[in-house]
């Protein structure tokens, strides 16, 4: 897994590439914890290049989003597709997160 971040106005765009599983999920949480510690609260997670997610990955997404929501922040997801979308749909995670077809549309929704 690889994580790239960029800042768009007040929103952090976090691009996750590869696999989010029992091995890599702790790295995902650590990255977000560091961003939260830096004061970031608005996030768009770009999952276009995420090829696989397991329950450990879902747990990391949920735990992180809960932490951010506790700080009055928001995590939106963009570009979910393929087998990752199937895991999301089956798990009911599609209704937990605001989801968008592109980072641009997520940014528009978040920043207005």
């Amino acid at each position, binding site marked *: 897994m690889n994580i790239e971040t960029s800042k768009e106005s007040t929103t952090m765009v976090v691009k996750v590439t590869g696999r989010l*599983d*029992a*091995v890599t999920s702790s790295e995902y949480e650590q990255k977000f914890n560091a961003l939260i510690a830096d004061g970031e609260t608005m996030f768009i997670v770009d999952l276009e290049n995420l090829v*696989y*997610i*397991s*329950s*450990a990955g*879902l*747990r990391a997404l*949920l*735990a992180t*989003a*809960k932490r951010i*929501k506790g700080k009055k922040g928001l995590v939106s997801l963009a570009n979910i597709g*393929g*087998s990752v979308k*199937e*895991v999301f749909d*089956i*798990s*009911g995670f599609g*209704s*937990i*997160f605001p989801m968008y077809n592109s980072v641009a549309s997520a940014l528009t929704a978040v920043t207005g």
Partner: protein
Amino acid sequence: MTFLARIDNLSKFEQFVTNCAIQFGLDATRTSGLQVAVEEVFVNICHYAYPNSGGTASIVAGTEGDALVLEISDIGIPFNLLLSSDPDTSQDILERKVGGLGCYLIRKFTDHASYRRVNGANILKLVVLRIMGQ
């Protein structure tokens, strides 16, 4: 095939399953779902089967007609992963528990899953049909 039950062996374990699925002719979507199910089983063994020492996880793959059959076993403490209760998938973000999804995903991504305890071994049998719903 036997692996040390350590999280850092997950990718090797999953690669074995993926190779079996490709040989069997399982399509990409079903193979990906099977990877999720198998990860749940392997990670559960790594975390809970051997609380006081290290141990192993073994996997045997075979076919029964149009089904790929995987049997994953450990010789750790007796535990039926399939008895875990399903999560409430309708809850919102603050209500939703962090966890409890593993068993649910195993059932969703296989056509049949069963547990038995034989001669001190936990054996989880996962069955995936070549074509969904056949």
